[in-house]
């Protein structure tokens, strides 16, 4: 059984982004880039399924600029067997990525696609669901537990107010939530090994996909800043302020 894992190159989790002064976007020049954390969880889950003997091959896919090769190498250092880069300098929105992934799914015929639930840059939370819909497959989003056996997957999902467990027929799309697993650190030998794993590059046109954006970003601004208030000396003063000044008690 083959598992496909899409991975996105994003501004590192620990970087506080700055909005460009001309309002056209955020400044990502000379900023550390990493794999989207939810995608790292997806790669880890796929590799664990392979280690458990459930999956036979883990294929990592990234869509974007040439530098996404690094993201694919990271996925292969965690344990993915090979990588596919859909290379383009064009802006890619979730619908376009879902279509690119559909074209790859048609070709690669994976039984499971494991995606991060959202990327931490555009915070869209769409691609996995869109891919699932385009393929006509079932989906299990926001997974905190995944078990795969004999043509089906049992997935526990994090929903508002608790958890639910679904049984879905394969092939299917699963998207990861934070608590699914804790990704391993890639060891140096595995990083070296990853450099020798196969990495294929294709273009969106090779896949016959129109990636033209549907949304135009008119401007990007900083959110209104919240300014620090006052420090209170003790609980009595705090209660007084909350009752008489803020009037929230």
């Amino acid at each position, binding site marked *: 059984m083959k598992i496909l894992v899409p991975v996105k190159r994003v501004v590192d989790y620990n970087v506080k*982004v700055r909005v460009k002064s001309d309002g056209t976007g*955020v400044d990502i020049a000379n900023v550390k880039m990493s794999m989207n954390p939810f995608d790292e969880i997806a790669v880890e889950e796929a590799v664990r399924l392979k280690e458990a003997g459930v999956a036979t091959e883990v294929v990592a896919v990234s869509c974007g600029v040439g530098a996404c090769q690094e993201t694919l190498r990271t996925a292969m250092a965690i344990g993915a067997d090979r990588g596919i880069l859909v290379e383009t300098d064009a802006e890619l929105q979730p619908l376009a990525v879902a279509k690119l992934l559909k074209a790859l799914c048609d070709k690669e015929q994976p039984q499971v696609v494991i995606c991060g639930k959202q990327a931490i840059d555009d915070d869209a939370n769409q691609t996995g669901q869109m891919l699932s819909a385009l393929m006509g497959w079932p989906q299990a*989003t*926001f997974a905190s537990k995944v078990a795969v056996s004999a043509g089906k997957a049992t997935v526990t999902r994090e929903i508002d107010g608790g958890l639910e467990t679904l049984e879905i027929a394969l092939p299917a799309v699963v998207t990861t939530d934070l608590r699914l697993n804790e990704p391993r650190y890639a060891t140096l030998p595995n990083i070296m090994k990853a450099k020798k794993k196969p990495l294929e590059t294709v273009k969106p046109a090779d896949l016959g996909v129109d990636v033209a954006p549907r949304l135009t970003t008119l401007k990007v601004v900083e959110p209104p800043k919240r300014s620090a208030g006052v420090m209170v000396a003790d*609980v009595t003063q705090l209660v007084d302020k909350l009752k008489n000044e803020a009037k929230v008690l």
Partner: protein
Amino acid sequence: MTVLVIAEHDNASLKGATLNTVTAAAKLGGDIAVLVVGTGAGAAAEAASRVAGVSKVLVADSAVFADQSAENVAAQILAVVGASAGSISHVLAPATTFGKNVLPRVAALLDVAQISEIVAVESADTFVRPIYAGNALATVKSADPVKVVTVRTTAFEAAGEGGSAAVEQLSAVADSGLSKLLGRELTKSARPELGAAKIIVSGGRGMGSGENYHAVLEPLADKLGAALGASRAAVDAGYVPNDYQVGQTGKIVAPQLYLAVGISGAIQHLAGMKDSKVIVAINKDPEAPIFQVADYGLVADLFEAVPQLAAAV
């Protein structure tokens, strides 16, 4: 032009998130139709018909929707949009786990983009949405014939009562047969839901343990009728379950009063609560970043200050 609002409900009643979504819909202009997809959902449909500003309620009531599976609910929404012969200009749902699960399927099958978690409506095709966990706000314009949009509920007031919309029954789509719900474990609590609470008492790593978390914060939350929340650090340390988490990767909240206790104020936590009306921080570290966003800060040992506070309110 009709704006179709997808109701989130439990068949017996509408979820509050639906009311915030109706308010967002009202800013677009045009008629508002609410679609209730459920099983024995007559009461929820009736509640929807009483929401102010709603002109029509469409109900697809069938056993097919008992699990509220994304596949079946999305198929029903598509059928409604298809049958409208182009009169539906927008499809809106709350950006809850329900809306986030279902709506991208609808967008993909309509071959349109989705605009996620809008916090403001600029015009019928232009919206403001947070990116980078709320560290930036993007204004985006859609060129698609149908705008598929999820709504951050904390950014819009709840619509009131006073409507008397006609209720129309629809025929339900067939079951996709792809997905089966095995079970749900909902956290049982007498407290208000995090997303809907007027007051939230939230604890961080400073609580020291799960026992301390409950022993110290619960009496205060009980006194205030507050929901309990937590930082990711407290969740990761195992003090409380994940559904307590407020932050970029947890729940986004905006209560009247947010009490942050023993929370340092990591960016990812601030992203989830900085739209609260009043923020109070209690922390023993005067340098904690949480004080930079707090309206009222108290540098104190939380184990002394919180019981005092509980006694004083």
